[in-house]
């Protein structure tokens, strides 16, 4: 029983990260219709950026905030330079975001090399005992930050004027533009949100999982799988899908073998793509013929 609880705890921690990355996918997809294949790189760059700032003598909280904001702005820059000129074609969008992802990975190699880098835990390494289940304190940071961020985003999208304009743009960009909503600004905002959330996900998980230049692609794929589970374009589904994937992975790793950890995500991906491409909660757009 303790064993199961332990797996569930670690699954929820990892799942929260996948959920955040999945929300990043969703934000961009809903407004621009593009699946950003460079999404995982945002997390990787956020973590490595925070590590770099810390090494340069910036205190930890400032380093975290600066890195997250910088990646958000990087997202805006990418939208402006690479995504906007490309137009709405799906195939082009995919290839361009892949090009962007590869470039970001290359830059990461040039700046940080190919070694894995650690980020110190935010509040010590002493494990916390929760009724027989031990978790590192960073796990609480991950779950707490993810929950706060998700609630914050939910309030932002449902309660603020800007958030409502953003959602209008996601529902129907043309109609939104007729109502005077600046759709170009909303596209930029979607990339800012996606970069910010992705970077925060990468930063908070960095003390638990080492980050290196090629960590991004796996995080990105897991986030995509979470989106598929929850139904693409559905932010709440994305968060739940992330948790579900994290749990599945943790249980499979615990009861089967750790070698299967990455395979699980792909098996789930294939199973959902073929059996239920609309996800559990349904999808905004029909994907199947």
């Amino acid at each position, binding site marked *: 029983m303790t064993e199961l609880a332990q797996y569930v705890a670690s699954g929820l921690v990892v799942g929260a990260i996948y959920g955040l990355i999945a929300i990043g996918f969703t934000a961009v997809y809903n407004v621009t219709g593009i*699946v950003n*294949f460079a999404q995982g790189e945002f997390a990787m760059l956020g973590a490595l950026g925070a590590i770099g700032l810390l090494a340069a003598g910036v205190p930890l909280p400032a380093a975290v905030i600066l890195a997250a904001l910088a990646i958000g702005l990087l997202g805006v820059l990418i939208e402006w330079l*690479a995504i906007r*000129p*490309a137009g709405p074609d*799906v*195939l*082009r969008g*995919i*290839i*361009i975001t*892949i*090009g*962007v*992802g*590869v*470039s*970001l*990975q*290359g*830059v990461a*190699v*040039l700046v940080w090399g190919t070694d894995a880098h650690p980020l110190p835990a935010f509040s010590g390494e002493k494990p916390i005992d929760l009724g027989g289940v031990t978790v590192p304190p960073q796990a609480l940071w991950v779950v707490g930050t993810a929950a706060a961020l998700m609630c914050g985003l939910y309030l932002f999208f449902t309660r603020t004027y800007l958030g409502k304009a953003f959602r209008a743009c996601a529902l129907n960009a043309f109609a939104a533009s007729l109502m005077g909503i600046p759709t170009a600004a909303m596209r930029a905002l979607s990339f800012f949100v996606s970069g910010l959330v992705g970077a925060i996900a990468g930063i908070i998980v960095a003390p638990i999982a080492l980050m290196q230049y090629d960590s991004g*692609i796996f995080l990105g*794929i897991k986030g*995509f799988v979470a989106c*598929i589970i929850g139904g*693409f374009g559905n932010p709440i589904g994305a968060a739940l899908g992330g948790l579900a994937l994290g749990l599945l992975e943790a249980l499979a790793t615990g009861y089967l073998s750790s*070698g299967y950890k*990455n*395979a699980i995500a*792909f098996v789930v*991906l*294939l199973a959902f*793509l*073929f059996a239920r*491409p609309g996800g559990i909660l349904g999808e905004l757009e029909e*994907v*199947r*013929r």
Partner: protein
Amino acid sequence: MRRVALLVVALAAVYFSGSGYLLNLFVVTALFALPALGLSLLMGYTGQISLGHAAFVGLGAYGSAILCKSLGLNPWLALLAAVAATTAIAWVIGWLVFRLRGHHLAMATLAFGIIVHVATVEMKGLTGGQDGLSGIAPLSIFGFELGTDAAIFPFAWLACVAAILVAENLVRSPAGLTMRAVAENEAVAASVGIAPDALKRRIMAISGCYAGVGGAIYAHYLGYISPGPFDVGFSVRLLLMVALGGFAGIWNVLFGVLFVVVTSEVLKPFGRFDVVIYGVLLVIVMIYCPRGLLDGLQTAARALARRLSSAAGGRGS
């Protein structure tokens, strides 16, 4: 046909130039051209994305090497069997993934590529893991081993020219027209009696066959393979080659391959800069030259010439 003759003349010039460096460069070009041509048939002509094409090259290479080493098959027999197996696997993968389209197809093929790469790393008993397989017997004709650049050059290009001719014929045949119809609009294609899924599977199989041939020749030519060259990065480079060639256009893709091979040579002294350059190049080509680099440069040159002539004309009047 004239282009093929020109290509053969150019290749003969390279072969007899006596430059080992040039020879090596062109052998590499031929080995990359095979999977790139296959990808062009799939992406350019049939409109289906694949982000896992390096996996087929890897399957061809590992298949042939393993058959040759563990079963002691003749290298030629191993090559044929590996290519046949890769073709069959490509057909099955096509059967699986072509239920999907757009982003989902891209992600499924990417996942397939990663699964194969992880498998080559993890299945240590069969593939040797990260250390790879060494001592793969070279192909040989009448006791003459094709292990050096000069020896493999004619054979590699023979395979490549054959692949070009087959691809050209395919594209010009009625099947080629149905491919383009499917790429343009699947619903319309289906309404005039084309079975899009069956067609896509067949093209995927041909595409996998091309990649498998490239991989198998590569394995016997080098005598050593490891998982490294068959990762996602290679799939992206194949994508770049095809994009530089404007996706559809057999000869343009050949140019794209040569361009990437030459740039990677030029960039070698700068260490790991090549990845950044490839990524940026892919973005630029996709935005500004959707019909390929050659076409983009031509358009730019024409625009420049027009501007210059109009400026000169303005001054004259």
